[in-house]
């Protein structure tokens, strides 16, 4: 997986990686997929056993599709507000507003986890990012996470690989010192 370029989603605050061969950068790709009914129906049908395993209760494919559409829509609206604010004020930052790392799983790589959700129930939407400075994040990817650990399923495991690839890429650009990296996923708790 090769990095083509980086987009600035929120001025001076949120960057997003565009991989070679992909139509969109990751942040844009995620919100497009999370609001694509055909994509979601196929995804939840493929992962029906995870959906109904009890981790998120026992949900039908139809309910899962609509829950995702609702959350993605609400989250995106909030992010548009943040990005709009960022365009007006370059010092406007995300950290205190949107991104909340919750748990440290691996202190050596500062692997943190939080949830990306905009509703009352636990969300399965995840956006993964690397924190490269105070209030500066690079989105490396994201997923619908139906299992506890990222390693549990190929589509979430690959997101770990993407985090490492981007981390290495940034290091080569001089954004260095491994200790400075924090792998996080994000939460919108404004809903």
């Amino acid at each position, binding site marked *: 997986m090769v*990095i083509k370029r980086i987009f600035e989603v929120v001025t001076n605050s949120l960057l997003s990686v565009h991989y070679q061969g992909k139509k969109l950068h990751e942040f844009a790709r995620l919100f497009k997929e999370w609001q694509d009914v*055909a994509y979601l129906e196929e995804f939840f049908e493929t992962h029906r056993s995870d959906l109904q395993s009890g981790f998120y209760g026992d949900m039908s494919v139809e309910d899962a599709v609509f829950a995702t559409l609702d959350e993605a829509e609400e989250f995106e*609206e909030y992010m548009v507000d943040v990005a709009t604010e960022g365009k007006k004020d370059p010092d406007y930052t995300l950290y205190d507003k949107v991104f909340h790392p919750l748990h440290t799983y691996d202190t050596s790589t500062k692997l943190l986890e939080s949830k990306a959700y905009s509703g009352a129930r636990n969300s399965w939407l995840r956006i993964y990012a690397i924190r490269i400075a105070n209030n500066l994040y690079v989105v490396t990817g994201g997923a619908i996470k139906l299992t506890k650990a990222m390693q549990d399923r190929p589509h979430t495991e690959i997101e770990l690989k993407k985090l490492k690839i981007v981390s290495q890429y940034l290091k080569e650009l001089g954004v260095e010192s491994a200790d400075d990296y924090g792998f996080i996923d994000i939460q919108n708790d404004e809903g």
Partner: protein
Amino acid sequence: MKDRQEVLDKLKGVISTTPDPWYKQAKKRAAEKPWKRRSQAVALTVLRTLRAQKMSQKELAEQLGVSPQQVNKWVKGHENFTFETIAKLEAALGIELMEIKPPAKKTAPLEEIFKIDTNTLFKKSPGTALPKSAKTTSTEAKVIAMDSSGYMARNEDEKYG
């Protein structure tokens, strides 16, 4: 942790100068919000029906005489469907995708509709009983229903009248 501006300067060469496409797409999606959920519901019903009937999108496209790309676009849930397309999909899949509810009927008492004042209608002499036929029972008061446009519901009238 490095200073934010210092890090941004290092990334200057790889940060795209073209505008972020997401912002424009997100604004468009927000503008489509008033009708989008209906389109998404249609898309999901079509997809679940295709799956249940073991029918491919390509087969549906052939049946409707449209391209597979067109069907693929419909089932994403971003299409502002026309009634014609909905009707074609319903016929092809043998399902109902949309139900239009008739306007709600407003029921008003007979006296309110016609402003009947039985005392003036039948000028009765003091102490004279009102003719039996002029009495309005509560059942009769309900028989004529009118909808919001003033249409008198004939079937209700016939049913009770």
